């Protein structure tokens, strides 16, 4: 019998379950009380702080850090959550190196920013451990708002509407709320069932009903929602995955990375989750990095990310790339897939070398083949407009103005499905929150 690690093809149980548990443990555990105060002491309390400008939800970072410093992490958490109700998740998943921490003046001073993300987690964890979400509802207005999609955008929108006294119904296609917090984010960033715990905590404000298994487009139309509610917010995310357009894409063993990740996130026994011995991931974003890294953590022997342009063009941040490299992933750049090869199942992928020319990317004239039992497609997701959604689009997404108004009166949108965002959890939260304020203004007016 071969060792499980060397089992050919796609197989479960490549690593003993203790090893898997260890691999998927909290990647950046909560700071201890002493660590937090030491980290907080480094904040300069900048004037008009650049980190605040860099945060899509504009959390008052110097203020919350000073609150930690003075021994009140729960007050710090209120500062955070009043701007960003998913501050707990954002503390775990934000690419802080390109957001707040990237703007920290201590990054300029000594290449070592204040650990804003971990301090944010320290504060929000303290508050969440201490009790319920701290916001109260304004007196009920009798107004009703439909929110479609229970991802970060929809949840942030619903919570803010609820605080203003409106009643919210969230229609969610999947069996569980949370969106990609629940089905997408890398498991080691948010272990211990945090995503659902956070949703439960958030919903405890009251006034929000979640109807799961209810998809817009499947027995529910936008017109019905417009009729039945005073306003509608669309936070449906990106439902479709870009196709590779390469020969052999249909062979068994070729799969969408997001689907694999969703299965991984929903698995309660990761040692039962099959993964290839040799894995090739095609793409250059967060999804590619997460699919690759988690394949390694499940026990894949060889995992290679192949990206068509240069390293600096990958949309996964440098830090994310380094996390993947540290977990034993290989990153190859400047190559595009020509075909998946194999008889009855994928056995490899043939790539063409590429180079950046004056009129864009072109083939450099040489090819190579990587062996692969499993191929993950992670070349981006796109918006899938549901039936009956006749909204104006921009760049393949729903066109919105600065506060999330779509081309249709009474309909707002935000998060990944709306044009202009960064496809990050934190921007989804910001847009959901801002749309809620706009809706609130419209309902009051």
């Amino acid at each position, binding site marked *: 019998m071969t060792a499980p690690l060397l089992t050919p093809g796609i197989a479960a149980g490549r690593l003993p379950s203790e090893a898997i548990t260890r691999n998927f443990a909290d990647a950046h555990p909560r700071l201890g009380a002493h660590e937090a*105060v*030491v980290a907080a*002491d*480094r904040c*300069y*309390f*900048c*004037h*008009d*702080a*650049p980190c605040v400008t860099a945060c899509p939800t504009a959390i008052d970072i110097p203020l919350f850090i000073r609150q930690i410093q003075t021994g009140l992490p729960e007050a710090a958490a209120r500062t955070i959550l009043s701007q960003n109700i998913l501050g707990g998740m954002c503390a775990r998943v934000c690419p802080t190196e390109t957001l707040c921490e990237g703007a920290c*003046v*201590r990054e*300029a*001073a000594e290449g070592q920013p204040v650990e804003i993300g971990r301090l944010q987690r320290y504060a929000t964890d303290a508050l969440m451990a201490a009790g319920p979400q701290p916001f109260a509802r304004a007196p009920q207005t009798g107004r009703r708002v439909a929110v479609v999609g229970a991802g970060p955008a929809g949840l942030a929108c619903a919570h803010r509407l609820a605080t203003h006294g409106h009643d919210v119904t969230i229609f969610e296609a999947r069996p569980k709320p949370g969106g990609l917090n629940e089905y997408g984010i890398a498991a080691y960033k948010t272990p211990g069932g945090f995503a659902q715990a956070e949703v439960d905590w958030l919903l405890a404000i009251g006034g929000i009903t979640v109807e799961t298994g209810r998809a817009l487009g499947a027995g529910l139309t936008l017109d019905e929602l417009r009729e039945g509610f005073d306003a509608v917010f669309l936070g449906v995310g990106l439902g479709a995955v870009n196709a590779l357009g390469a020969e052999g894409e249909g062979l068994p063993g070729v799969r969408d990375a997001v689907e694999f990740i969703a299965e991984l996130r929903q698995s309660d026994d990761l040692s039962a989750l099959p993964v290839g011995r040799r894995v090739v991931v095609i793409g250059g974003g967060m999804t590619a990095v997460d699919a690759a890294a988690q394949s390694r953590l499940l026990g894949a022997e060889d995992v290679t990310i192949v990206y068509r342009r240069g390293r600096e063009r990958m949309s996964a941040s440098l830090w994310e790339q380094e996390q993947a490299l540290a977990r034993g992933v290989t990153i190859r750049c400047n190559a595009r897939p020509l075909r998946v090869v194999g008889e009855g199942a994928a056995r490899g992928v043939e790539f063409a070398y590429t180079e950046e020319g004056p009129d864009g990317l072109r083939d450099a004239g040489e090819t190579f083949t990587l062996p692969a039992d499993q191929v993950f497609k992670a070349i981006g997701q796109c918006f899938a407009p549901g039936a009956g959604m006749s909204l104006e689009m921009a760049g393949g997404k729903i066109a919105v103005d600065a506060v999330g108004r779509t081309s249709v009166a009474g309909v707002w949108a935000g998060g990944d499905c709306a044009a202009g965002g960064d496809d990050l959890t934190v921007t989804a939260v910001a847009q959901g929150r801002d749309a809620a304020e706009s809706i609130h203004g419209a309902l009051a007016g």
Partner: protein
Amino acid sequence: MADLRSEFVGIRSPNPFWLASAPPTDKKINVERAFRAGWGGVVWKTLGLDPHCVNVNGPRYGVVYGADRRVLGLNNIELITDRPLDVNLREIKEVKRDWPDRAMVVSLMVPCDEASWKTILPMVEETGADGVELNFGCPHGMSERGMGSAVGQVPEYIEMVARWCKQSTRMPVIVKLTPNVTDIRQPARAALKGGADAVSLINTVNSITSVNLDDFSPEPSIDGKGSHGGYCGPAVKPIALNMVAEIARDAELAGLPISGIGGVTTWRDAAEFMALGAGNVQVCTAAMTYGFKVVQEMISGLETWMDAKSHARLADIVGRAVPNVTDWKHLNLNYVTKARIDQDACIKCGRCFAACEDTSHQAIWMKPGRVFEVNDAECVACNLCVDVCPVADCITMERLPAGAVDPRTGRTVSDDHADWTTHPNNPSRVAAE
């Protein structure tokens, strides 16, 4: 290599770093460890007459922290030694015998009557100690019993006790002063009049470091109650430096040796005390915070600095800053400077802007891209921006040369000295010749 050997009122020690009278010097085992680590001398923890004192059995220290729990200030409610007199005297004698090259000064505090002082002095003399220090400084506990700072706050008592002591011992007498007075020169003058050989200062400052907000007890809390303690450590250094300078530049006190105490933590602090006129320094909190090994940094730092500046011996630095300590009225009003921000060093935190805009003279512009620049037409040269900038040397003060026009006042800068004594706004100015 600079020569750090020190002679203070005739007492020799291999370096000017003595441990102040306090827990680090309260028994043989500590003092020997201190000498092994390199300390030049000690002032033994204050002795009193038997029956010996007792201390509280709960916490006796309070603290003030800076960033990362760095101790900036310590406060204590400890009394003088709580061991029998004969035990201390025996140990002092043993240590002096085994470490003849180190300074051994014995701190004393007995009731304010001649008989008490005349009883204890011969006992100390018998140990072979090099000198005595009269503790007129302890501000808590002992002062309630008419000793310590209760004596140090009454110049007549200081003079009287100093005189008794000088009459009954051949040992040099150092008078340790309390800072809990309004004019430190008065007790120093009294000590000199009484015949004291030197003064040492400062002892601790009356203080409450914090209040427990759960039970509303001052810290350190003894069963829910607290009493004021004595404050020491880096936080008191500026107070101590000023008091040392006040004595050093007082004409009536000219030549009176000073042992500098209060917040000495590094070689640099020691050099500053000595530049302001201290012949040596005494250290307590730094040793209590970091252990005896800190003296090695102090010794090597002082040596390195003296070598770099070609100061061969301590006499070359003692008192060098004293002539530069003057009264405000003599400061040159024609010395005009402006803040300058080094754009390459600037990390764009904006603290200078917040400080100047909110609390000073609205003299810093915040330009697009977080570029901070000084508006010379408003800058009064207060230095606040320099002080709050987290980057050393990023903001500096540049002197306007003579002949330049200060855009704030429109006046041409002169290189003549002009001060308040001759300023037209001064109603009691002396007419310029």
